[in-house]
């Protein structure tokens, strides 16, 4: 991908905070990244790293005690602070999102047909008949057998994998430019996960959309993504192409994370562990959130942490000498 290309999503210095009884939870801190047309970007991190909240913030779906600061530009349009009315024209239409558990995103009282056609009637102003026809076609595309009849079923009549297919079909109806997938395969079995990943790869080609794929599974990242953002304590620690992150990880957290995963392709005597526990987001330390668990920590780690460029598409946030400071 050439550098001149305009990103479809440009996130700059995004901060997400939640006001709770005990203070302010800093879920996302100074996040900046770009998504280009047609690429699949993985966002990995442990629970509490802020990966889901980032996506909810840019969709304007934060809980009522949440606040967003910074800038999120989608195709040049600023999303932070946009009115709900204007936001509704974009989300579900140009940006779509699928979640971990499809059962909680689908309305159990409505047939799939009602839920799918609603989107087209609302966003594309189609008639019910046209919308139904288009919905059936989309269900067929995501390989739901006997879509013509099954569209008139309720969500509970589908299995977990099928429901996730229905969700994907539903989100693709408006042909979005960007699909945000928040752990869509985590609740599924591996054989079903393999089916869904394969489907997403095909659809990306066909619909020419970018996908942000949130996961904690490095294996899924290696299978699907072109680029990865590694998050920790609400920070973006490292971003690099898929090949770089696995063969040449730079950040101590990324390295430790990769070494602590038991894999089926190689064997180790003892797994590497990261001592301690993830930071408390109510009381983040000054400077790098990983300093308390890092093996290479120094005094500089509690100051301003520089961004460094290792090579053109590989950026790390760390005090060690790793590349050119930005």
């Amino acid at each position: 991908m050439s550098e001149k290309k305009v990103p479809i999503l440009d996130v700059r210095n995004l901060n997400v905070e939640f006001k709770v009884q005990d203070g302010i939870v800093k879920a996302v801190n100074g996040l900046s990244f770009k998504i280009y047309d047609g690429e699949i970007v993985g966002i990995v991190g442990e629970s509490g790293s802020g990966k889901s909240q980032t996506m909810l913030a840019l969709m304007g779906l934060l809980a009522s005690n949440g606040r967003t600061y910074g800038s999120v530009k989608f195709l040049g349009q600023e999303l932070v602070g946009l009115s709900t009315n204007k936001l509704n024209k974009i989300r579900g239409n140009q940006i779509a999102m699928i979640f971990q558990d499809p059962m909680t995103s689908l309305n159990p009282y409505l047939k799939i047909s009602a839920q799918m056609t609603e989107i087209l009637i609302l966003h594309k102003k189609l008639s019910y008949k046209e919308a139904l026809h288009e919905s059936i076609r989309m269900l067929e595309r995501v390989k739901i057998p006997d879509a013509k009849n099954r569209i008139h079923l309720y969500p509970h009549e589908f299995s977990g994998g099928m429901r996730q297919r229905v969700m994907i079909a539903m989100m693709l109806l408006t042909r979005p430019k960007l699909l945000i997938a928040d752990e869509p395969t985590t609740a599924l079995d591996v054989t079903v996960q393999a089916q869904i990943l394969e489907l997403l790869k095909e659809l990306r080609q066909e619909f020419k959309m970018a996908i942000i794929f949130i996961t904690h599974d490095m294996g899924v990242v290696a299978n699907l993504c072109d680029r990865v953002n590694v998050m920790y304590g609400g920070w973006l620690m490292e971003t690099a192409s898929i090949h770089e992150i696995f063969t040449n990880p730079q950040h101590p957290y990324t390295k430790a994370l990769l070494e602590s995963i038991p894999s089926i392709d190689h064997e180790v005597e003892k797994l590497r562990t990261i001592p301690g526990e993830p930071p408390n987001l109510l009381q983040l330390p000054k400077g790098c959130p990983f300093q308390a668990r890092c093996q290479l920590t120094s005094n500089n780690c509690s100051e301003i942490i520089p961004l460094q460029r290792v090579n053109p598409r590989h950026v790390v946030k760390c005090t060690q000498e790793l590349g050119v400071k930005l």
Partner: protein
Amino acid sequence: MKKILEIRDLKIHFNIAGGLFKPKQTVHAVDGINFDVFEGETIGIVGESGCGKSSLARGLCGLNKITSGSALFNNIDLATANSKEWNEVHKQMQFIFQDPVAALDPRMTVAEIIAEPLETLYPEMKKTAVMDKVLATMKLVGLSHNQINRYPQEFSGGQCQRIGIARALILEPKVLICDESVSALDVSIKAQIINLLQELQQKLKLTIIFISHDLGIVKHICNRILVMYLGNIMELGDKKSIYATPLHPYTQALLSAVPVANPNIEKNKQVQLLDGDLPSPLKPPQGCVFNTRCPQAIDKCHSERPQCRLINQHMVSCHILN
């Protein structure tokens, strides 16, 4: 090696009550399985959700009733054991659950939680002796003695799982059943708990029955692997040879579907995609239970259930293999 657990034709079925217009139905959770567990080994039970691995584990420690068959442990048949016999079993076989927080009573302190099995099964033991044992066990699993009067909600998930492990180990059991015991934990914490389990196993000479859907972890910690599908054993064998040369079509598909954290392998690998989903355990298919999704199924697979046979050191139940 000495057999510690001998399971023969074990079935665990659940009845679903019928209604006025609904016939009674039966869930065939575990449907006639045979295997042995040897002393000191770690046997991994893998399979997708609904394959019966948890039902089996819960059956082995009395949380589910065994419908038929036998499971011999220390000359006690778990299928017919009375409550006195179960007490003996529980002294030597303990369970670690999946959700570390839900498995602990929020109204009990750490000391009370860890001491409970000891107080229940050895009521004659002195209070001070119990407390000494609690402290020793906490140290063993890496908990600090000044945390003794805290409540579970003051701990993180990883620490709660340590409490769960301490509670299981205080009886000095021979067998530990871990049902998805690390699945709910984050990667970095998961590695800590896995290492702890391995250390404890060596120190205490434990036999571990490790149930998981994560094939990477199972490969790391187990000696033998048992692959289950819809209540039946598909394949059982030594870890190395199961991963290197899986024989059963289901094992092959399962292993190829696991994403590996290495883009070079992922880009070049041929995933054997299975069609569809797991059939309902209410109505398992006739013949081989895997025949609805098996790419190599022949006529015989639809009519006759395959028996487990020894092929190349693996126990496999499949018609097409010779």
